[in-house]
């Protein structure tokens, strides 16, 4: 900024530039330009919006409804004239303009001219004036969008551009004949209403605003009024000296933008290189965009004539012109050629609307897809059920149904594809095609249906879950799911409907097609539900609705067979083992372990395994069945049948011998059998031993919670006394616990039940607070029973379950059933049942029970009584 000797003069105002001017620029010109351009209709700092109340107060004759626009020239409100019952647009010019006295005069003069412009493509001015502190124009209200908004939502097709430009020309020609220049043609000022009519707004407003004669400082700078990008070069340079050709230039810019989506800035390409349009259009557009106005069209009418010529001359005029112009791009044939030659309005085009073929094709395909899908859903379960119902060995193959499913996929896929293509076509055609609703239905039906099925499966899973936790809610799930699914479908359909609205036609408020899609889907849902309901039992192999199927998994290793069971909450879990020899249940004792209910689903592992070291006990079992509570990590029960031979485990080495029957659910009972060979010498016949596990879960009755213990059912051999003793193992010996014993003498055929139970520390019988943590009980025929509880000084190892044993007692024998397992602190406890000869023989008095082992001496054989 340091100029030494030479004093430079400003090229703009010819005055010397002061040496201290920042940037060595003429401060006067710079600031004047900054100040002026602001006033020229582009205030970057928006003045405050006049409050609605003050506007309403200034216009008592109107109902001011709200602001609908705000631009370089002021604010536009939507208002209603109650007496005429029509909507009007109220344009308020910037309040600060009112301070310019010359403005009022100019405003009145120009507005009077504008009010005379009466043309269908020009927004009519009803009234103007000054009310309160506002200069206002009362104008026709156009319900629609401006071309900028329309372009933003989707470019105009050449057809649309060709239909719209002549109408802009009409309006301009009319105004020019009336001596009015627009001076600010741009997409924002070209309005398209909902009926497809075009109206140009803001005629001459630029002049009112820009002709600021009152302020010399501002206008002498050569302020250009208008929007620079759309302005003719001469309008930029000499705003005062413009004629109708400036408007034609601006029209050319708009035309170019409609065709290419770009502005003709710099060295721009002709439209036909940017978009698929007739090359002859280039001549028209480029001539409107000539830098020198002498070379432009002289009138808007001329532009219109040229455009109409191109539109109408394409295929019907025969090959001559086509050849002369070097071929016509396909886009211009077809619809455009059939369009009326002149004065086309989109409204007229509406009359010639046809249906979108793609939409129809899509709908047909969708319907086609329904047939195989319906077959698949409805027929297959029935057919398959016949097979299950015992028709024999004939099994229906899945393959035909798989093929059917695929066949239903294809039309559905194509239907959706065509539907979307049709939507796109209709949007691009600017609403000149019928069938948008149909296309929407066709496009969305199958995709949404698939989504719905997924959601529905989610709902079914939820139902299964609730069947365990809150059975009362199960029935609510399906209606709730239907409502949710319907709402989701409706929202999606609405969005798609809105998003595919043709440009220039704002989406109408009615959403009927979206609702139809939604209704179709919701109607399809019961069919789906039915299908799903029929499929679910099939898949889950359950016959009782939505109760959870037994989740049973089995695994084999070289030492064990392991079955994992998930049990429902609040149910007892019972494992019954039947030992089979060569597939025949042997008469050796059956075992049953019962595990008490928990509030959560239980996870149990039932393992049949060999015992590593049989602990040297004389009758120690060579194998055992252990029920483990996986949740708490404890052993709930350990079943050790005695008197069985040692086995050679072949489970994993001879897998082909393993016969694992699948779990069959039958009133909550599952059977898992596992066979294996018993090993022996070469001379011995090998025996196939197996164990059948019957897994049951049952709702617990009123008996309260379970404790550990042994429960037996047996028959007392004739002439014998059965003595129950609770024993514990001490090394090699069994020691009977004092006091925990009972005996029974029963008639030979009578079934007797004996129990040795560890009761929880409550009062199970409700007889008082006497604690009887241990209890031995024998119930004989005729309900004669002996029961007693004795306190044991020390707690014993925890028992997670109850073991039931069905025992056939042999005379003069003894069996021990172990309940639970011991640990380092606590001995393992078992129930020993001995049978003894009772003397003398009983005849009439053939039944007795009692506590302890000192059965009546009268019957005693001299055997010392138990301790």
């Amino acid at each position, binding site marked *: 900024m*340091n100029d030494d000797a030479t004093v430079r003069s*400003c*090229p*703009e105002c010819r005055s010397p530039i*002061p*040496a*201290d*001017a*920042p*940037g060595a*620029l*003429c*401060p*006067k*010109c*710079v*600031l*004047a*330009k*900054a*100040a002026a*351009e*602001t*006033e020229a209709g*582009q205030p*970057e*700092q928006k*003045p*405050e919006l006049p409050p609605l109340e003050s506007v309403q107060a200034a216009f008592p004759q109107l109902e001011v409804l709200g602001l609908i626009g705000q631009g370089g020239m002021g604010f536009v409100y939507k208002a209603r004239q109650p007496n005429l019952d029509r909507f009007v647009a109220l344009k308020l010019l910037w309040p*600060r303009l009112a301070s310019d006295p010359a403005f009022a005069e100019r405003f009145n003069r120009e507005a009077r001219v504008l009010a005379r412009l009466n043309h269908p493509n020009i927004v009519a001015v009803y009234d103007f004036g000054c009310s309160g502190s506002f200069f206002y124009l009362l104008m026709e209200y156009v319900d629609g969008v401006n071309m900028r908004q329309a372009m933003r939502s989707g470019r105009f097709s050449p057809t649309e551009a060709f239909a719209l430009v002549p109408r802009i020309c009409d309006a301009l020609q009319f105004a020019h004949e009336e001596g009015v220049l627009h001076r600010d043609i741009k997409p924002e000022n070209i309005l398209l209403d909902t009926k497809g009519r075009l109206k140009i707004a803001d005629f001459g407003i630029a002049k009112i605003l820009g002709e600021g004669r009152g*302020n010399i*400082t*501002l206008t002498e*700078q*050569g302020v250009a009024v208008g929007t*620079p*990008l759309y302005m003719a070069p001469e309008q930029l*340079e000499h705003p005062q000296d413009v004629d109708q050709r400036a408007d034609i230039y601006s029209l050319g810019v708009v035309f170019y933008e409609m065709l290419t989506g770009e502005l003709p*800035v*710099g*060295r*721009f390409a002709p439209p036909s290189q940017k978009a698929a349009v007739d090359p002859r259009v280039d001549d028209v557009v480029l001539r409107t965009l000539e830098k020198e106005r002498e070379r432009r069209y002289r009138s808007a009418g001329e532009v219109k004539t040229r455009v109409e010529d191109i539109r109408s001359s394409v295929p019907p005029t025969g090959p001559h012109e086509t050849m002369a112009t070097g071929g016509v791009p396909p886009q211009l044939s077809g619809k455009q050629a059939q369009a009326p030659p002149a004065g086309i309005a989109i409204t007229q085009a509406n009359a010639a609307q046809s249906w979108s073929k793609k939409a129809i094709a899509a709908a047909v395909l969708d319907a086609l897809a329904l047939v195989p899908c319906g077959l698949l859903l409805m027929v297959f379960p029935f057919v398959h059920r016949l097979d299950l119902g015992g028709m024999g060995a004939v099994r229906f193959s899945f393959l035909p149904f798989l093929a059917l499913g695929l066949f239903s996929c294809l039309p559905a896929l194509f239907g959706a594809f065509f539907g979307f293509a049709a939507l796109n076509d209709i949007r691009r055609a600017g609403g000149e095609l019928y069938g948008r609703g149909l296309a929407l239905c066709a496009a969305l039906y199958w995709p949404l249906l698939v989504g719905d099925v997924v959601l529905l499966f989610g709902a079914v899973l939820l139902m299964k879950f609730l069947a365990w936790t809150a059975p009362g809610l199960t029935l609510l799930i399906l209606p709730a799911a239907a409502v949710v699914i319907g709402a989701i479908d409706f929202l999606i359909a609405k969005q798609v409907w809105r998003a595919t609205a043709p440009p220039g036609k704002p989406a109408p408020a009615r959403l009927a097609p979206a609702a139809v899609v939604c209704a179709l889907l919701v109607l399809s849902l019961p069919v789906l539900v039915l299908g799903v309901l029929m499929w679910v039992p099939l898949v889950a192999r359950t016959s009782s609705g939505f109760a959870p199927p037994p989740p049973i998994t089995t695994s084999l290793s070289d030492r064990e067979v392991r079955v994992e069971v998930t049990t429902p909450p609040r149910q007892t879990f019972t494992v019954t083992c039947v030992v089979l020899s060569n597939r025949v249940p042997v008469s050796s004792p059956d075992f049953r372990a019962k595990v008490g209910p928990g509030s959560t689903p239980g996870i149990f592992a039932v393992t049949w395994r060999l015992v590593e070291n049989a602990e040297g006990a004389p009758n120690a079992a060579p194998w055992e069945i252990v029920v483990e509570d996986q949740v708490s990590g404890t052993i709930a029960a350990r079943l050790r049948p005695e008197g069985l031979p040692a086995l050679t485990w072949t489970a994993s080495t001879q897998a082909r011998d393993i016969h694992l029957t699948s779990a069959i659910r039958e009133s909550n009972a599952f059977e898992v059998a596992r066979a294996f060979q018993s090993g022996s010498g070469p001379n011995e016949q090998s025996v196939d031993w197996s164990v059948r596990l019957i897994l049951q879960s049952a709702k617990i009755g009123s008996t309260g919670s379970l404790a550990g213990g042994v429960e037996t059912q047996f028959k007392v051999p004739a002439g014998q006394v059965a003595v129950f003793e609770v024993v514990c193992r001490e090394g090699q010996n069994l020691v009977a616990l004092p006091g925990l014993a009972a005996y029974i003498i029963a008639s030979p055929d009578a079934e007797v039940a004996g129990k040795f139970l560890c009761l929880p520390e409550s009062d199970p019988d409700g007889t008082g607070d006497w604690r009887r943590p241990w209890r031995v009980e024998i119930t004989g025929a005729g309900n004669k029973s002996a029961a007693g509880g004795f306190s044991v000084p020390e707690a014993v190892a925890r028992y997670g379950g109850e073991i039931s044993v069905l025992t056939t007692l042999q005379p003069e024998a003894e069996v021990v059933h172990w309940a639970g397992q011991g640990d380092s602190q606590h001995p393992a406890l078992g129930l020993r049942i001995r049978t003894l000869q009772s003397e003398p023989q009983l005849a009439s008095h053939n039944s007795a029970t009692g506590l302890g082992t000192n059965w009546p001496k009268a019957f005693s054989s001299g055997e010392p009584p138990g301790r």
Partner: protein
Amino acid sequence: MEHTPPSTSNEAFAPTRWTVVLRARGDTAEAKAALGALCEAYWQPIFRFLRRSGRDEESARELTQEFCARLLAGDPFVGVDPGRGRFRSFLLGAVKHFLADVRDHDQRQKRGGGAVLESLDAANSTETTGELLVPDPAAVVPDEVFDREWALAVMARALSAVERELSSEGKGEQFKVLQPWLAGDAAGGLQADAALKLGMSEGAVKVAVHRLRRRFREAVRSEVSETLRDTAEVQEELRYLVEVLSHG
């Protein structure tokens, strides 16, 4: 260098500082800060005004400092009504008061055989004094001088703000080349030349010029509105500044 007039201070535009000052009557910390920022922004006009009224560069700087300090301290010499709306008017009034005050003081000192005026030529060595009038402490400097300096300061600040903004976008070179167009198309010259220089198309230059003008306009308006009570007066103030420059 602490006395360098901070014409290129880089604080961002804050919303109408002058309003803040007025609202608080200069009492709150916020208002003090706003006033300080305004003083800093318009240091140059004050300084030049003082220069014009016959101070040499050094003492003008000192006086400007003192003036600002007293202004910020809320010195009662500020016997002007801040309610007049414009910071420019307020500041001019304050400076004039301050100057009168200082003159009295000088007179008293002179009577005591105090300071001697320094040579005029001494100041000519620095660039900012190139076109200064012959200083006459007794002469009444017209208000327009202050206003003209003010207008230049506004312009300089807006220019540097735009330059900063563009430089941060990596368009510093573009700013340098296109800057002349801010005065008008004739001042700019051929856009083709600029296009060549910048390696852009002519159309792009056209757009860039348009954008530059718009930015500058925004900057000027924002600058001016900082000093006004009512932002609606921006246009009026701008007009006034243009007028002042035309006469100058």
